[in-house]
């Protein structure tokens, strides 16, 4: 029996560049920054005062008041994006197919804001005042749980927590679930929202965040010589992945075909990649092997590209290791230059961007790339989106703990 093929048939986005796929994608192609000053709490005492917050999200459009009250923001974003993705796909989940539709989501941390809130309550008013909804609001599998409840999808229901690679691993495992035959369709991606004192303070303590407070829109500058850290962001990117015949039978629109997935570990350090990006390189090779593609078959890479000095240098090195001479022919961009880093949601969002890039044959830009640093000497699609032929494309994600995830999609052809 030939391998079951998997295609992307729906995309749903809630991002700092807009709620709704069209709005976000237009801003991405126009090179708009979603970074500005933090509005969620008083940042006077914080080294970092900037973030990419979701600005136009209206919970009332998606939830009843009581529902929304009992979901932390990351859950709201995830469920909203999933519903947009299912609507976009036109997939009807009913009695006949519901046990064959899975939900696999990724999340780096979970409900940190609601943890902060209840901890404060516990200290100030005692343990008896901890909300009974605290735990079910905070745990990282609540997006997948609520998506299942809202859509009726009764297949495999999983949540991966692999830091900044979680969204990518979720999509990869969703792909596998369909190839293996456990599901015919999977709602998948990532959701995150930790723009709160502990979230910002914690990443700032690691010196992982940009402190370019005076110019928020220019702060996320992957591969640029003046980059100084990532920008914490929030939101969700979800997709509907579907077995090819299942999608064709109902005449679904196909954005792209998912063809390869790699997952590997650095076995090296809690936060830093090895200097040569060895683990990431192995992961890219693994995805190429899984897809049965050669390096020269790839035209575009949506890079992890966080804008930290270390990531962008090591990722560039890893790409050169895997692609050799072809590395110079690749168009590579970091959409984090515009969205900031949505942590566990980033991989879901960037997989969705990959599908859109292939569908529209357009490579988004890396904005704020004024002068690349000397060790970043590839083609990063600086500052302007590029219409180009994209036969196949790769998305990279690397997470704390030394975990790596890589996806490959290609243009759908019979």
């Amino acid at each position, binding site marked *: 029996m030939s391998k079951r093929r998997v295609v992307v048939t729906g995309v749903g986005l809630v991002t700092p560049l807009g709620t709704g796929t069209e709005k976000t994608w237009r801003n991405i192609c126009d090179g708009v920054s979603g970074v500005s000053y933090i509005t969620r709490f008083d940042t006077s005492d914080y080294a970092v005062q900037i973030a990419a917050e979701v600005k136009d999200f209206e919970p009332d459009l998606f939830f*009843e008041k009581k529902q929304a*009250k009992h979901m932390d923001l990351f859950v709201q974003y995830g469920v909203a994006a999933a519903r947009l993705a299912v609507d976009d796909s036109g997939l009807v989940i009913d009695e006949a197919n519901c046990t064959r539709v899975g939900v696999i989501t990724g999340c780096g941390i979970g409900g940190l804001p609601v943890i902060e809130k209840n901890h404060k309550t516990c200290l100030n008013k005692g343990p008896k*005042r901890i*909300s*009974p909804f605290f735990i079910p609001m905070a745990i990282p599998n609540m997006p997948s749980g609520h998506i299942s409840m809202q859509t009726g999808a009764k297949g495999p229901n999983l949540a991966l927590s692999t830091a900044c690679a979680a969204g990518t691993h979720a999509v990869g495992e969703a792909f596998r679930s369909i190839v293996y035959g456990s599901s015919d369709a999977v709602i998948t991606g990532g959701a995150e929202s930790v723009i709160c004192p502990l979230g910002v303070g914690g990443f700032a303590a690691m010196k992982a965040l940009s402190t370019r407070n005076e110019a928020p829109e220019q702060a996320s500058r992957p591969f640029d010589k003046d980059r100084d850290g990532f920008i914490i962001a929030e939101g969700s990117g979800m997709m509907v992945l579907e077995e090819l015949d299942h999608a064709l039978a109902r005449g679904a629109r196909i954005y792209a075909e998912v063809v390869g997935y790699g997952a590997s570990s650095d076995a090296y350090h809690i936060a830093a990649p090895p200097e040569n990006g060895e683990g990431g390189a192995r992961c890219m090779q693994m995805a190429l092997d899984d897809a049965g593609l050669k390096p020269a078959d790839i035209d575009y890479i949506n890079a992890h590209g966080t804008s930290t000095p270390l990531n962008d240098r090591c990722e560039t090195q890893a790409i050169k290791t895997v692609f050799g001479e072809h590395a110079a022919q690749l168009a590579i961009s970091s959409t984090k230059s515009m969205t900031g880093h949505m942590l566990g949601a980033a991989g879901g969002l960037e997989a969705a961007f990959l599908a859109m890039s292939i569908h529209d044959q357009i490579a988004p830009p890396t904005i704020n790339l004024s002068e690349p640093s000397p060790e970043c000497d590839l083609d990063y699609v600086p500052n302007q989106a590029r219409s180009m032929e994209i036969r196949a494309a790769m998305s990279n994600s690397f997470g704390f703990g030394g975990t790596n995830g890589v996806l490959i999609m290609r243009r759908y052809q019979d």
Partner: protein
Amino acid sequence: MAIDQQMVDIIVEQLSVEKDKVVPNASFVDDLGADSLDLVELIMAMEEEFDVEIPDEEAEKISTVQNAIDYVNNLKK
């Protein structure tokens, strides 16, 4: 504010229901859509608002709007 009026406001807020549904004989579970966690949160809100303590075994007996009003009225006597 009278306790019954205050109670109605708490219930409207906690259970996100319309005010006109919160009648004396309305059951929290059957008429106002509360689940077990909603009830825990509702009792907690009553304790906060009226500055009283409602033991679990007493809380279990409070199933309607009138039950709740009577219980707090008794404590306040």
